[in-house]
């Protein structure tokens, strides 16, 4: 086994970063921060992006007066520039028991950790503050966003264990009360609840103007239900067992899960929330690259 100096460093995969390392995780909304960064701030500042002219008022720095405009209009105007800032990036990681499921290769929780860690790495590299909240039916661990917390985030991801049943509403409600400053929230879950319930739980997170990015992490077995033998199926969340003949219900199951994903896609897009389904059979670098590059393409500026 490979050993790392920092527990959880295995989640920051150089192969993935090699693919997505050139991309940036930019806030779609205007966010507030303390230092210069890559995101649009709500204030005017000292970047090189010209924003608008404003009439000169006493106290303005005369170096900002646009003398050419003065020559044309005989009035004093000052030039204003966009301010860029950094932001908080919080990874909200579902560690309910269903996340420990895997049918081949990698568990959903590990896959989610990889995604979260890579995005946190990107954020940290662009001087954003990174934090982590793990939750199941309540908040399990909380790492407040900070520029120095990247290692702590990785350590917490390493320690995360899917042990208890999940419930989105309670922990997300607590989080919504907790977030005071606009930032980027990355939510990773398998969303085993009704679309309306999920949206009701998530909506408060975006009320403050947070940029919400939702990743729906699913195992290939959950998508195609590729079982053959008749068996008793046990619900990882509740422990309930149901005898199942996969052949007889595979078509209906696939239709239901696709309808569930379609419903989530519609609802989230209505609320301008980025929603991406991640199949754990898909190479992580491809999934992240396609998401980040499409986000970069579709980025709207203020």
């Amino acid at each position, binding site marked *: 086994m490979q050993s790392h100096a920092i527990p959880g460093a295995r989640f920051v995969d*150089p*192969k993935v970063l*090699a693919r997505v*390392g*050139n991309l940036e995780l930019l806030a779609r909304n205007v966010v507030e921060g303390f230092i210069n960064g890559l995101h649009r701030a709500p204030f005017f500042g000292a970047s090189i992006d010209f924003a608008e002219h404003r009439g000169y008022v006493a106290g303005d720095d005369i170096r900002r007066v646009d003398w050419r405009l003065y020559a044309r209009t005989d009035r004093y105007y000052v030039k204003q520039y966009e301010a860029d800032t950094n932001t908080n990036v919080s990874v909200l990681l579902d560690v309910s028991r*269903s*996340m420990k*499921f895997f049918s081949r290769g990698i568990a*959903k929780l590990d896959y989610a950790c990889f995604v979260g860690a890579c995005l946190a790495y990107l954020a940290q590299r662009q001087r954003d503050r990174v934090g982590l909240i793990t939750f199941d039916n309540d908040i399990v661990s909380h790492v407040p966003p900070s520029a120095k917390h990247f290692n702590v985030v990785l350590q917490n991801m390493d320690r995360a264990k899917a042990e208890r049943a999940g419930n989105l509403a309670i922990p997300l409600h607590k989080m919504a009360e907790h977030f005071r400053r606009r930032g980027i929230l990355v939510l990773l879950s*398998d969303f*085993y*609840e009704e679309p309306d319930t999920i949206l009701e739980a998530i909506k408060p997170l975006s009320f403050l103007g947070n940029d919400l990015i939702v990743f729906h992490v699913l*195992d290939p*077995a*959950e998508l195609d239900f590729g*079982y053959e*033998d*008749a*068996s*008793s*199926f*046990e*619900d*990882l*969340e*509740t422990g*309930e*067992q*149901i*005898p*199942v*003949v996969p*052949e*007889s*219900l595979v078509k*209906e*199951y696939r239709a*239901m*899960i696709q309808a*569930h994903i379609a419903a989530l896609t519609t609802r989230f897009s209505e609320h301008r929330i980025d929603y991406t389904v991640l199949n754990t059979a898909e190479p992580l670098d491809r999934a992240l690259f396609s998401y980040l590059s499409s986000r970069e393409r579709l980025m709207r500026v203020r």
Partner: protein
Amino acid sequence: MAFLTPLFFVGLAAIAIPVLVHLVQREKKRVVEFPSLMFVRRIPYQSVRRRRIRHWALLLLRAAAIALIVAAFARPFFRQGAVAAAVGGGAREVVILLDRSASMGYGDHWARAQDAARTVVRGLGPDDRATLVLFARNAEENMRATADRTRLEAAIGAAKVGSGATRYGPALKLADSILSRSPIKRREAILISDFQRSGWSGSEEVRFPDTTTVSTVSVASTGVANLSVPSVTFARASFSGQERITVTAGLSNKGDSPASNVPVTLTIDGHEIQTERVTVAPHASGSVSFTQFTLTGANVRGAIRAGTDPLPADNNFHFVLAPSQPVSLVVVDNGDRGDSSLFLAKALGIGSTPAFQVDVTSASRLTPASFDKRAVVVFNNTSFPPAGGGNGLKRYLENGGGLLVVTGDHTTWPQGEAQLLPGRLGATVDRTSGRSGSLGYLDYSHPVFEVFKAPRSGDFSAAHVFRYRTLQTEPTDRILARFDDGAIAAAERKVGAGRAIVWTSTLDDSWTDIAVKPVFLPLVHQLVRYLAHYEPTTSWFTVGQVLDLTARAKGRADRGDRIVITPAGERLTHAGSGEGNEGLIELEEQGIYEVRPAGTPAARPEAIAVNLDPAESDLTAIDPRELVAAVTGHATPVEVQQQAPPQEMTREESERRQALWWYLLLGGLLLLAAETVISNRLSKTERFL
């Protein structure tokens, strides 16, 4: 008919198992964990039906399979040889595979191997035929299929230990090919070797048919003692214009006992320079460094000799030394800034393999003579120098020169010389606003970037590119690198025997910061090495390598026929035309080969040192049964052939009389396979839990 192990019939009681299974079969109880049954819960399911005995055919199939397998384990055999004779009696086709690799020179291994081969020959029947195959790295049919024992024994006696490495694959493939062509039904391959583990990788894809018997004779010894010199390294230093060399010899003790106080001697051009004593622990390595000596000229022959042991061949190591040749290049810049070629010159000032001899000059001072004896010319962000016009640069390139054009705002290229540049230079692209550019694609198959292919071997994406010149290439040009927006970063064009590469940004800190990135130095070195056609000098070769004399003679005046004198003193003549296999020589012997142009007996010959494959020193043996099992598909017991008297029934004969168990086992397995198919089909047609 009788049974060797009738006790196995107790196993027939196992027939009761399928009966019980059929009688008490219950529903499958297997629990599958699933993240959430949220969707499954909504779908109605079919309930369980218990089953009783209904599939009599399946039950009988299972019982029959068990009975056959039990009978197979009881090992039935025929007391009379009639059946066996009917299966494979009569004449035999035998292939004797005799290992003549260097490791067979250990102690009395070779003598024992020859004796074993002679015993096999003497055991041949009057109608039997045998082929002698001598093998090391390759296999050769030394004596074609013959029943003449005298000729076979003479061939065995004439065979000698070679210097090649052991490879069992080619020999076994040749044996298979010989046997498969034979009209005789009884076929046998006998492998006589020391069974070095290094000779068998397991992936040789050799498979003998079931009708062929493979037997082995091992001459391996236990408790071997073997010290070898697997490699030598040279540290070069310049002193008063002369090159001084420090030789360090690596020593490897593959034996089970320590090699104590072994004298290790360095010999240069036949003179003993120094002897050091060293102790190497068992299965460990060590090294000896000798004092520096001054290299007086080319073709200096050296040798390391490390003690004596039962395998003397690997105690000697030969090498040939030549003075290192620096790569000479001229960097041409615009001359307007004193430090415009600073980064290039500094980067090329570092390096010893090869060393670079760099001259920096301005375009206006460049003369046509400046190209002479230069391996590479670098136009570093400069206008086209007048000295390059008038076919001067073209001639230089066609004669094998290298040209690196580093573009910048000063770079110009006249229309008349367009065929020398890989593409047409265009406008400058400015990436200073917004995100700067970076290198997005590198052609790792190209020699320049090949060294960066492995992970963590150079991060080009860390370099920021703020400006570059566009380049429009021809389809025949090779694109080596692109920026992240797809624009060409580097392209190559072959001009005659020369190479021209254009780098569309600068190699300083004006248009890009690549000059301060860790990849800069290896990149510049790789570019110059490639453009200079640099080939590192080889001080020795390994037995089995093929030498291209034609390629070595390139660039020399004497390109005619070559006389090659092998270490054993054999004279070979090779035509200098280089057509077909002419000019190619396989280095089969350990020692010094001498090559000189034909008709110049007084000329000092070029020396080529050849050493044993270091793997030959490792005498660890593979279990012959493992090898037999790999090539036959079943673990055949190994017997030493020479111990069986030829008139008595051989082990193979005895095996053939017991061969019925194979068929019984096969029948049992086939029935089980049929049972699997049928039960799978039945289980699909029935929904049960």
